[in-house]
């Protein structure tokens, strides 16, 4: 764990750079983490981030299937917004824990 000042706020990050406390998150923090990932956030990004944060707050799991059915984007558009590893990047930027896969 480490602390880092992002967009003027001191936040705790885990070893992989995910925020430890989702309540510290602001849009500005999201924008700054996104920049480190090479992503410029648009309105669509923020709309999806809000959906993701609400899901996590409700204790529900995140999957690509679920996001594809979110009504905000389909799975392909999700990849377009967060290229490469969309679930990992989107959760990092949204200030929520990285989804775990258990099989």
């Amino acid at each position, binding site marked *: 764990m480490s602390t880092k000042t992002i967009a003027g706020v001191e936040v705790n990050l885990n070893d992989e750079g995910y925020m430890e406390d989702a309540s510290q998150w602001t849009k500005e923090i999201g924008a700054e983490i996104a920049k480190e990932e090479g992503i410029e956030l648009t309105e669509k990004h923020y709309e999806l981030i809000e959906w993701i944060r609400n899901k996590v707050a409700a204790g529900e*799991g995140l999957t*690509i299937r679920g996001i594809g059915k979110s009504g905000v984007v389909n*799975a392909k558009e999700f990849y377009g917004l967060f290229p490469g590893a969309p679930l990992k990047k989107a959760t990092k930027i949204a200030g929520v824990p990285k989804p775990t896969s*258990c*099989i």
Partner: protein
Amino acid sequence: MKKLLILGAGTAGTMMANKMRKVLSRSDWDITIVDQYKTHYYQPGFLFIPFGIYNEQDVIKPKNDFFPVGVNVIFSAIEKVEADKNRVLLEDGISLKYDYLIIATGTRTAPEETDGLMGNLWYKDIFDFYTIEGAVALANHFKTWKGGKLVVNITELPYKCPVAPLEFVFFADAFFTERGLRDKVDITYVTPLPGAFTKPRATKMLGELLEQKNINIVPDYNIMEVDNENKKIVDFGGKEVPFDCLVTVPTNLGADFIETSGLGDDMNFVKTDKFTLQQVDHENIFVIGDASNIPTSKAGSVAHFAAEILEENLLCAIEGRELTAKFDGHANCYIETGYGKGTLIDFNYDTEPLPGSFPFPGLGPFGLLKITRTNHYGKLLFRWIYWHILLKGKDMPIESEMQMAGKKL
């Protein structure tokens, strides 16, 4: 008469029928089990069929052979659970009342969920091995296949028997080597996971095994569609993997009636308390096996360990006591690695697969995360145990709760 109703007569449902008939008085309790199919498949055997080790006859028996005396059996499709009315509707208009309900309807493969998967090449160059039809069709295909790009793709999580596709590529390596074709067969393992498996030590061990066997891995891959014309799969990020023979692990979904009954998640797996095995919204509904959404493997061993927990908790609920048994997510999986050898993993919600010996500390006879001949024989022997002991709900010399003794941290 009170009524216990069990939906699904696969591994989990059959075990529960046997267990509960032993402990519930026949004068007070009526037990009914419902399933739409009359044939019981030994699903762990499907993996062996494409390589000619087992045939169809080795993995099927009539379901009726495994029900205890004193259980009503109904073969019918299930339409809906009306949980607020404590009743279940079957397809021909029959309705069944229950005091307690056990849902054990498992999971099914849903290849129709992926665009192009069931196109022109389905069962010509594209196969699954999680159905008897797919496994037999693939066995016939391999008999005359001259080699090329063999791609094994896991569509999405969760899917049942998480180690089966790994065993499949290990078997394929040995099978084509023994046929003198291995230099003509390029094997690629394409998975949505970041590596060969989920947890660190097993991922490392199995990842190294893939490398030793010259099997390519494409991780973090979420398939979008199959391009039948150009014989390649494409993921949502646009990454393409060409194939000559595609072996797919299709999307896994729970039964359709789970959705219409409002009991499940977005993949129709029943929302279940991972410790008590109770459905989250209904105290008189319990869930066991692949049908549940508990965060552990969808595997027969999990259903077997969970069965003891469910028996205890169901009795607690019936007698109006607090539920005392707590499931730990215990899973135990033999993994075939080819050439008559295998490895074994044993884990639960909190403990990843660790090296060591099983079930007796220091003695084995099985080696955890080790490749041995005994592990392979353990898997072959298991088919006999499955038909004769496990389905009948008899005790096995293995604790349902995962044991740390014999494991090395």
